[in-house]
């Protein structure tokens, strides 16, 4: 039988067509969303829009403005003349920050008096605020170091190298293990997308449930779990090959964790279907709750800052044992041996889900057969 005939056969039957659509949604949608996110966080250096109000017409101030304009991460969208232009631009949300250089800036520097540049940030900018601050602070910090070196050269008559050592007695560098560029895409995207896969797997499980034969019930759960695994792996591959999200650790660990989580989620979906008396629509309507587990797993908001109770609850959440460790595998190159406790947890989770879903299957089947017998006996009595 050719592939086209098989597809035609599936499409002809309403139930199998619906099952196929749900499985296709599960298989393709996470990768499509991954492409969207990849395009959004396109990996280019951030060009943060800023406004500069320079009241000082001196060469020193002009060169400072030029240095800010030359910074690869900043984009001066406006050169203002009044201080309230900074406030206005921040109020309208057209810039991420505003810099005001006072009129006595270079004069004070020449006279050895203190002078201060004011930097205003848009606190309502949400998650970008810390990145904006660090970009601007780093640019101004570099300019300040250069200036101090020139002071030391001038006032102390030191050579440039000695001046540098005097002004920078010691330095430090920051190394971000597993994510050297502090990339949000690397830090977040994989877990976000794998959570989408989990939601999709539960949804597909809830949609394709079986009421009569246990073997088919199990078979559907496993197929759904396998497609969830394929979807998760495809998503990781898309992010890795098209958007350079690193995957440096053990491949087998990634596959195994995906498989165990997807199996557990598929049977959770079947269980939800059974709990809703086989009403797929009602069961699917409740799957959004899975997205909450990503928040509770400490993936984006640290567990340390959550109330104590959530720090205990988090252990019972599959995402805690899936997206967090898989991020470590992908970015830090963690080995299989390191993730064994998480793998065992996920194994336990998937076995429990199979058992719970099976128990529910039998209890529902028993109930319906009892009801059927009652109906038959009522019919006999009536007859």
């Amino acid at each position, binding site marked *: 039988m050719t592939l086209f005939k098989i597809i035609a056969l599936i499409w002809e039957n309403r139930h199998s067509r619906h099952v196929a659509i*749900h499985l296709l949604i599960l298989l393709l949608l996470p990768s499509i*969303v991954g492409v969207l996110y990849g395009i959004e966080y396109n990996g280019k250096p951030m060009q943060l829009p800023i406004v500069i109000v320079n009241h000082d017409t001196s060469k020193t101030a002009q060169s400072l403005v030029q240095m800010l304009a030359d910074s690869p991460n900043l984009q001066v969208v406006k050169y203002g003349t009044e201080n309230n232009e900074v406030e206005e631009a921040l109020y309208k949300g057209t810039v991420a920050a505003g810099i005001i250089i006072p009129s006595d800036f270079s004069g004070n520097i020449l006279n050895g008096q203190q002078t201060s540049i*004011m930097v205003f940030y848009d606190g*309502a900018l949400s998650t*970008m605020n810390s990145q904006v601050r660090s970009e601007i602070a780093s640019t101004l910090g570099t300019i300040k170091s250069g200036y101090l070196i020139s002071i030391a050269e001038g006032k102390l008559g030191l050579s440039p190298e000695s001046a540098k050592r005097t002004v920078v007695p010691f330095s*430090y560098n920051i190394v971000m*293990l597993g994510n050297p560029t502090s990339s949000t895409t690397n830090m977040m995207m994989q877990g976000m997308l794998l959570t989408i896969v989990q939601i999709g797997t539960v949804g597909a499980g809830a949609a394709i449930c079986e009421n009569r034969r246990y073997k088919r019930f199990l078979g559907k759960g496993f197929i759904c779990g396998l497609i969830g695994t394929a979807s998760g792996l495809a998503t990781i591959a898309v992010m890795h090959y098209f958007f350079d999200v690193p995957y440096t650790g053990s491949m087998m660990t990634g596959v195994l964790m995906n498989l165990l989580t997807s199996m557990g989620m598929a049977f959770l979906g079947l269980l939800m279907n059974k709990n809703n008396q086989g009403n797929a629509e009602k069961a699917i309507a409740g799957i*959004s709750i899975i997205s909450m587990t990503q928040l509770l797993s400490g993936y984006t908001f640290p567990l340390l800052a959550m109330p104590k109770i959530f720090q205990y609850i988090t252990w019972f959440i599959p995402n805690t044992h899936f997206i967090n460790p898989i991020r*470590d595998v992908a970015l830090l190159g963690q080995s299989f041996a390191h993730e064994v406790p998480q793998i065992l947890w996920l194994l336990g989770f998937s076995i429990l889900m199979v058992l719970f879903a099976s128990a529910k299957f039998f209890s529902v089947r028993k109930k319906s057969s009892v009801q059927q017998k009652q109906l038959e006996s009522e019919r006999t009595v009536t007859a």
Partner: protein
Amino acid sequence: MKLSQMFKQDIQPIITLLFSVVVMPLLFGYLWHNVYIVNVPFGIADLDNSGLSRSIITQLESSPSLNVCYFTQSEEDLKTTIKNGEVAAGIIIPPNFSKDLSQKLSPKAMILANGTNLSLSGPAVSAASTVLSTISSGMQIKMLEGGGLDPSTASTSLGTFSFAERTLYDPINGYLTKMIYFIIPMTIMAIFVTRFFLPLMLDKRNAFIQHTGRKETLANITEIAGRVAIVSLVGIVASLVSLFLLAIVDGLPLRGDLIIYFVSMAAVMLNFIGFGMMLLIVVKKAENLKFVFHIFAMTTSVHAFLSGVTYPFYLMPKPLVVLAKMFLPLTNLATELKALNLKSIGWDVALPAIGNSLIYSVLWLIIGIAVYVLNIRKERRKALQSDSFTALTADTQL
């Protein structure tokens, strides 16, 4: 249909809406109550063992952001401990650090952090950087003094060029204020569109097909308008109640004008109706709703990521912004709603956003209603044809 009857008919989505919009955000408020991340586990690899290195460690220990809980003499051990997640970050003070400093060799320390979870390691890195910068400034003054400058000139020289930072609108920058102004309308959208609007319109579609009389059609249209208005109003009021409760319990800033908020939320609800009509172009049968629910649940985060709330529009590629604004209902007003509550924006900023959102609503309402009506007419024609065919067959048989 009477108002009370309409209300009764939608009691289930109304209760879900009230519960989700009022209670769930309170849970988020409790979850994200701590705005400062303190006591982050921190490790130290002191390979210098000098007075200076011990002074650095003492200052790191006194930082409230850090919980210095791991000490080692090996760089590799510290790396492994960070990778294993036992500490979020750490510092390596190299051998001869103090000696190199006294010989003006400008030694280099290293702050190592787990880059996989920046929300945890970020505060640790920032606290350690502050400690090192403070010590470095002290050293700079001593170095300049040692070079022959008097103490006051040395300190003035260092302070000559400084920059002061001010964060406007939300200086604390907590997680709750980052997210909640978006989560509330997002929750309303999920319930309004999937639990109420789509089932209602699919149900009425059948009614429109079956009842062709003008009076019945008008009654159905009035009923739709009435029920949509009631549930929309409940959504707006629930969002306000939720924000007020969060303001009382968690101190959430609410600085906006109430009228602007109400108008903006009304525009948001209109967007949801437009979005619903857009979905109805594809969904024609109630049995297909489960596909919508499935896709909707999987793409919740897409609405958040492309709304401009988590990642600003000016950093996104332009075509993506256009697509997002064309298809996603919250994109036009999400940042405006946040700015309204945090920046207390006036009509000058709110109106253009409301205008864009109205364009979205009107566009999808026109296209959606046109397709909806065309489909109904098509179905009616089909029904008429099959009726006349049945009648014809019956006549022939007679």
